[in-house]
């Protein structure tokens, strides 16, 4: 085991690997600065570049980016009070307050050093997990692997923030979407509606960039960030280093919390970071300074949000169930290379495992170093308004999702899913279970049929491993049920530690016509899946039917709740005084008017994207870029003409040169086929 680790380190001396790691680190740092992208965006945008690379190079690039995304996202949180990712909003509490006192450098030093330590401790955790889990993993057969995939989807659904029913519905719909294409058992086409293009299934990059990337752009494009005044860096570098050293226990504690949050599916960087902040507050004797610039409020969370990404990789690589969205995409990538995570990666590709560990650790150090060196430039970058960045991001994301299949159909699917992802985000549906379900759909079905053919009836259920997993599956549900009952009876006032994210305006369209529509879409989609699966052969039918029946039940409950709430809101509240409390608590968020400003802006952004795609389909990608970018910059972002011209020119030249540097194809339009 030690020699594999050393061999992996030696292989990193290969210049091509080192260069990939460096490129990944720089790309990750830049993407960390862009609000809303986070680890998911970084992996999704870089993934298309890796098509055609060898697995080690591809992994070095992606891990390099993933390891440092949460190092640089702090910069805008501290300097602008506008976090680069959801998890950096925790750092904002104390970091921004510190910066306002003229000690931005102190806050950034604490953050960068803790991020680095978090990354390294995360990598150590990943290393230790390999020998610990090895005997366990090697004892797994198909029944256990099947249970693990079920566990992956359902834990993600249950543990994600927000409503469990919404989480389960999202996870099940992800499973259905993952089954589009050729069935793994009977090789017949499912849910393709006779389309040849859907026969290969939906492209992972298109789904992820749609659900997360485009949705994020649409919901943020209305933010015009440039106006906020930036705070100068100030002094305090030395003080930061000294404080970081005195709070080393907080660093380690934060990193461990992060690893744990990463291991649990569906608990991502955001929740893990809030958990770390909660712990830092709870264990501090003097709580006065929290929220006003306490170093402990920066150190723990910053170390946690980097180690979360390493923790995510533990279940992903060892058990084949992704711990979070970025690692779900890594899992998809490994599967396309024919590397099966789980038992086979431990026996056959141990070198890749250690390569990941080393890359993660080295990138963490490199990332912090680069941040220290370039903090002034990074601070300037954060001043760019989001709408200006959005123009380029849309162009890059569309180009990225074109690479997997080389078909424009993928891009249309991506925009449709973008609208859907925005709807999910703004109505409070967790999106992580959706993507995890999408990735696990095919493995789930394959393991189920393997199990079914190897075991008589339900004998496989009696295997000890399966029983343990069943228990793990059921316990969180009982737990959630007890909490739900207590909340209904209002006997939960005194309960536990509420260290999760404070309920904020993450889902502004909750309890509105929009969420009713979202539940309706879920219901219709499951019903359609159930009906159309009736025509499949019995083998291919079983799993889709089970999933869509389950989905129908859950989305039916959602629809019922939404309709009941609508009806109740409509009836005049005459008897309010009788049960004031119950009523007041239930209707703290009154149904808002459906057509809010943000919704209008988001849909307008999607129209822009559709226009861009239509242009691409007609005239080809390069011409579409030269029309779309200046138009978007001038009209939506209200940038100056000079900026728009330079921006377009630079992007055009880069795009022109790109195909000769990297294995990338530019979409050709209908016009190009004529010429």
């Amino acid at each position, binding site marked *: 085991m030690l020699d594999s680790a050393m061999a992996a380190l030696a292989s990193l001396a290969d210049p091509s690997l080192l260069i990939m790691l460096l490129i990944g680190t720089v790309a990750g740092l830049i993407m960390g600065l862009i609000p809303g992208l986070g680890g998911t965006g970084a992996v999704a945008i870089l993934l298309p570049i890796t098509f055609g690379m060898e697995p080690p190079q591809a992994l070095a690039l992606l891990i390099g980016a993933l390891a440092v995304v949460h190092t640089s996202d702090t910069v805008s949180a501290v300097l602008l009070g506008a976090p680069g990712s959801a998890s950096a909003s925790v750092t904002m509490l104390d970091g921004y307050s510190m910066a306002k006192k003229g000690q931005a450098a102190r806050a950034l030093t604490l953050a960068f050093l803790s991020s680095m330590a978090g990354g390294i401790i995360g990598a150590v955790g990943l290393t230790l997990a390999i020998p610990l889990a090895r005997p366990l993993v090697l004892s797994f057969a198909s029944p256990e692997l099947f249970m693990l995939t079920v566990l992956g989807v359902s834990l993600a659904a249950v543990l994600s923030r927000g409503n469990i029913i919404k989480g389960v519905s999202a996870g099940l719909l992800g499973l259905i979407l993952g089954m589009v294409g050729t069935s793994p058992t009977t090789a017949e086409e499912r849910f393709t509606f006779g389309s040849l293009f859907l026969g290969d299934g939906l492209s992972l990059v298109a789904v992820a960039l749609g659900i997360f990337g485009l949705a994020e752009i649409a919901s943020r494009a209305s933010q015009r960030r440039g106006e906020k005044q930036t705070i100068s860096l100030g002094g305090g570098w030395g003080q930061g280093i000294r404080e970081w050293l005195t709070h080393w226990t907080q660093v380690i504690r934060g990193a461990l919390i992060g690893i744990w949050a990463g291991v649990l599916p569906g608990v991502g960087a955001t929740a893990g970071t809030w958990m770390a902040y909660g712990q830092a507050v*709870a264990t501090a004797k003097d709580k006065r300074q*929290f929220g006003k610039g306490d170093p402990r409020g920066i150190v723990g969370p910053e170390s946690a949000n980097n180690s979360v990404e390493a923790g995510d990789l533990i279940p992903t690589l060892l058990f084949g169930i992704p711990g979070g969205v970025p690692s779900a995409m890594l899992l998809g990538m490994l599967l396309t290379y024919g590397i099966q995570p789980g038992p086979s990666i431990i026996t056959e590709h141990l070198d890749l495992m250690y390569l990941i560990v080393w890359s993660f650790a080295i990138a963490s150090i490199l990332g912090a170093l680069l941040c220290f060196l370039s903090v002034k430039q990074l601070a300037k970058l954060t001043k760019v308004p989001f709408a200006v960045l959005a123009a380029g991001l849309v162009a890059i994301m569309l180009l990225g999702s074109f690479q997997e299949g080389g078909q424009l159909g993928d891009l249309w699917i991506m925009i449709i899913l973008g609208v859907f992802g925005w709807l999910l985000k703004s109505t409070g549906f967790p999106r992580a279970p959706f993507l995890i379900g999408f990735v696990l759909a095919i493995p789930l079905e394959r393991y189920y049929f393997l199990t079914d053919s190897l075991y008589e009836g339900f004998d496989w259920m009696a295997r000890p491993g399966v029983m343990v997993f069943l228990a793990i599956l059921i316990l969180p549900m009982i737990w959630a049920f007890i909490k739900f009952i207590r*909340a209904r009876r209002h006997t939960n*006032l*005194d309960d536990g*530690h509420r260290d999760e994210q*404070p*309920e904020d305006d993450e889902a502004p369209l909750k309890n509105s016509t929009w969420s009713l529509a979202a539940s309706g879409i879920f219901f219709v989609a499951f019903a359609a899946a159930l009906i159309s699966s009736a025509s499949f052969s019995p083998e291919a039918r079983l799993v889709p039917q089970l999933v869509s029946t389950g989905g129908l039940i859950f989305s039916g409950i959602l629809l019922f709740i939404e309709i009941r709430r609508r009806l109740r809101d409509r009836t005049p509240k005459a008897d309010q005084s009788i049960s004031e409390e119950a009523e007041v608590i239930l209707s703290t968020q009154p149904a808002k008017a459906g057509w809010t400003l943000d919704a209008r802006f988001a849909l307008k952004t999607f129209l822009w994207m559709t226009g861009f795609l239509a242009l691409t389909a007609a005239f080809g990608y390069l011409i579409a870029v030269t029309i779309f970018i200046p138009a978007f910059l001038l009209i939506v972002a209200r940038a100056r003409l000079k900026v728009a011209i330079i921006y377009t020119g630079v992007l055009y030249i880069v795009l022109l040169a790109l195909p000769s540097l990297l294995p990338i194809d530019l979409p050709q339009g209908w016009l190009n086929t004529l010429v």
Partner: protein
Amino acid sequence: MTVLVAYAPAPEGREALSEGIKEAHLRNSDLLVVNIGRGHHDLEPEEVRALETRLGDAGLALTIESSVLSDPGDAVIQIAQDRNVDMIVIGLRHRSMVGKLILGSTVQRILLDATCPVLAVRSDKL
């Protein structure tokens, strides 16, 4: 001189509030209310006004404060330390040992972490 009341829209919270008012009158000190209810449910405006007049008659002031911390226990302790209050008043009810072990207890954390005297009032009296 300030008395801090951890209020929540439930029997425990109301018991704590009425006891806190008594205590404020007794000590001739101002009243500071921190809301710890789940969700962002605050005191009703009418209740606040009634409370203000009640305290105002005795020449005492009412402040309502919240914290950036999401955990109610931490929020109470933070504000108590920050305002240097003389006493925290909390309401509580019986909890089973197992319940406290599994779900935890905010009241217990306030009692153990507070750096000033804590007055605990039971809402489920005999």
